[in-house]
């Protein structure tokens, strides 16, 4: 490294002689700074998504590297949000990647003092058993006048406003066939 390069590499020199007298731009750069690239540039793929919080429907771009979400940004193409996100939308990467997120099934047996781990397939089978059993125990075929009821009042469900239309469709379709009618979501709140 020559002396001249060495001196020019000194931020104070660049600050005094260059176009950045306040030292908040070019003068403050280092080789480390120059070597940095935004995560958005090195992503393997970008998915076009929509913010999961309120109903404005801001466009999101979800950047993925090595199978992991590395960044979520506002989508400038969206005519609704024009690239902006609010604090919640900006934090939505943590919503997905936080280590506080519960990623495995937990089970609390009746009167149990603590959670226990449970295999997903086993949990699904147990839940299906309970649906079948509760439905049988609480089934109502007809009302007092003999008109059809075809239902169970023993099973209820709450939720849907944070879910996809396709999901709500299958939820209502299945519950209707099962005769479960106490199906509600945030829209009632």
């Amino acid at each position, binding site marked *: 490294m020559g002396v001249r390069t060495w001196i020019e590499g000194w931020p104070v020199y660049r600050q005094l002689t260059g176009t950045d007298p306040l030292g908040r731009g070019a003068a403050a750069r280092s080789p480390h700074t120059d070597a940095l690239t935004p995560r958005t540039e090195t992503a393997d793929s970008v998915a076009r998504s929509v913010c999961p919080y309120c*109903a404005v429907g801001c466009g999101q771009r979800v950047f993925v590297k090595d199978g992991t979400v590395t960044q979520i940004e506002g989508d400038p193409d969206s*005519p609704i949000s024009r690239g902006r996100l609010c604090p919640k939308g900006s934090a939505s990467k943590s919503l997905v990647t936080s280590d506080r997120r519960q990623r495995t099934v937990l089970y609390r047996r009746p*009167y149990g003092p603590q959670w226990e781990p449970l295999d997903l397939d086993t949990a699904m089978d147990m839940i299906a058993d309970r649906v079948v059993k509760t439905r049988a125990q609480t089934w109502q075929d007809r009302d007092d006048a003999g008109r059809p*009821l075809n239902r169970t009042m023993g099973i209820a469900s709450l939720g849907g406003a944070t879910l996809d239309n396709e*999901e709500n469709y299958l939820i209502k379709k299945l519950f209707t066939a099962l005769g479960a009618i106490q199906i509600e*979501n945030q829209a009632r*709140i």
Partner: protein
Amino acid sequence: MQDLVNADCIIIQGSNMAEAHPVGFQWVMEAKARGATVIHVDPRFTRTSAVSDDFLPIRAGSDIAFLGGVVNHILTRGLDFREYVLAYTNAATIVNANFKDTEDLDGLFSGYDDETHAYDTSTWQYEGHEEHGPGAAESHVARETAAAQQHESHGRPLPTQTLRDETLQHPRCVYQILKRHFARYTPEVVERVCGVSREDFATVCDAWTRNSGRDRTTALVYSVGWTQHSVGVQYIRTGAIIQLLLGNMGRPGGGVLALRGHASIQGSTDIPTLFNLLPGYLPMPHHEQHETYRQWVDAIRHPGQKGFWADAGAYCASLLKAYFGENATADNDWGYGFLPRITGDHGTYRTTLDMIDGKVKGYFLLGQNPAIGSAHGRAQRLGMANLDWLVVRDLYLIESATFWKDGPEVATGEIVPEDCRTEVFFLPAASHVEKEGTFTQTQRVLQWREKAVEPPEDCRSELWFFYQLGRLVRDKLAGSTLGRDRAVHALAWTYPVGGERHDEPSAEAVLREINGYDVETGEALPGYLQLKDDGSTACGCWIYSGVFADGVNQAARRKPGREQDLTAAEWGWAWPMNRRIMYNRASADPEGRPWSARKAYVWWDPDKGEWTGKDIPDFEKTKPPTYRPPEDATGPAALAGDDPFIQQGDGKGWLFAPGGLIDGPMPTHYEPVESPVRNPLYGQQANPTRKVYDRSDSLLNPAPPEPHAEVFPYVFSTSRLTEHHTAGGMSRQLAYLSELQPEMFIEVSPALADERGLAHLGWAHVVTARAAIEARVLVTERMRPLRVDDRMIHQVWLPYHFGFAGLVTGDAANDLIGIALDPNVLIQESKVGTCDVRPGRRPVGPALLGYLADYRRRAGLDNGHHAPLRTVPARHQGES
């Protein structure tokens, strides 16, 4: 949303848009930069108020009096947009001679039945239509089943012919009835009821009327600050009446915008996970009213009526074909007999109380956290503690999953973990980037999300969960010959699967079924006009038909906004038929010409013989403005060329609603169920048709003329912070958001801080008949006492995001709130209630129960007392 920039004035009331919908608010700011006047009306000075041209503080729960004052201002001065009002609203229609107003009956309309607390609405009907009004018994059923919701997009059935007086002078025409009804809502009354000064009120009236008409439009924006009241639907009705009188509906920069708070809460209403609806606002069959398929279809299409609901047979048959496939045949009425029947109120609050009573055994929670997010949190938690089994599907361990070990009732001893029998399954959910599918945002636009990554470990989508659950249950019941299992066998439950694990059903295949297809060819249908009632088409939600037109996922369209005009018709897809402003035929005059060059939007092109413009016309494309239906026409053919409100039974915007509403054909000021003041306008104190549950674990604070209202002297309201979301399950678990808003607080005025000895940043607690919660005190001038009916009313405000699980925790504001519901839609009154506020922290442990019991005793509630729905005159009070 973007259309707000076309507004000349924006009135925001019942919403803190800048805080709760900040990115949408950019369009308000852009409109303001272009010269629009922005006015905010709210109990509290907020971030929205800070950037508005005018802010008016108002007493929570008095908005109908305020808006009624605006109606009165318009009608007494003749400031309505007369040409629009005459042609497009029911202003000229003559109403039944026996109709009696709240002005005649001291706060009740004609037809009130003291037995059912519901109205016989025959006297509310148009002249000559008396037999079409439901009686009180039918209205009672309609309230129990939130039937008004089934009319979200259509309105009550009506015969096509009505008597009209085009001069608007007939004493029984809607215009004159409306004028008389609102005559009492003078600026003096507004001041007395709402605490809004006459000068401030004049500013709003002037801005609203000056910025409406042929050449100018005003937009009205609200959120749940209007919805969550015992008269919430009538709040919105009053706003709609103003917008119709001023000619702002169906026009650019106009309308009534509901800002909704969850990513697909609009979608979950359209494709409902609601007890009283099937997809596309078809009613869930009622055991009495809809015993047969024909009764069900006729109740929707109402033979002889105008408009697009006349084709309901096609929507119904196609839904059943989508549900039951080849097992839906003409011989079995498309499988109508498989459908379960509702018998009354099966809403979420009824269900919660049924859990407490042990009637509900199993409960699924799907991305919702009632332990914190629903009114009367204690009832929610006690209900869940009395289940056989509970399945919680969420991203995080929310309070509704852990209440049995760390909820507030564990501290008071009301829930003892080793005595709590509820079996709990927590199944982790896939996040929004780990699955594909559509959200429907607040302006009815469906936007498709691509999947970015596979869900980790045990995390799965609801699509996976319900598809697999359905498969498992069907397998378990495969050998059954029981009648009750026929619907399960008959269900069309085959979807292509994919994903890394080869078991995720295809969301596109489901969306295609929602769109509808030709049963024989399997081809996607272009729209709902192609639906048939003969079983040849299947369609999962008729209003979404067209989202997969041409076999293309239209919701996935992503043409950048900068390459399109403001309407951005090629971004996503809006129901119905990609129309961005509904009823946009009204943006042209009766002859089909734009009302003005400045407000041109959709118009008739006489050369081409079709409607054209900046949006897809919400009208039959080639029906000329001059079209007049033959006398015997029904359905769409009965709509004249100048009937823009094409889903209404008479094609008109309703200033007076002859049906469809439980609590009256016109809005009337009632006090909130919990109020510190007597209704200054009528003997009737609160909504006489409200829905309450008369039991000792669902108490409401007393309000005048009941005694002891002074025990809870203050008014409280709750709402959102930018940094949190609803019950906190998606925000209090995240580090950045928790750091930005770390603690529960209560906002009070300096005057109240003085009165109660509250110190800024110190502790206070808030008490109602249901709960006492504690919070840090924030003393600001953003809250101010208002003079109402010659006394000072103090209002306090709380965020409702906090709970006992997460990175940041705090007492839950919803614990304070009682269960009093709007009769039309069964939504709770959570934007206004009464409370006491005390300095210091609340008692803990069992001492808390004694503390609350003392309040209830002083309030006269310890015997479970409830105020009668119809107000008993004050002289009879005291003995109860």
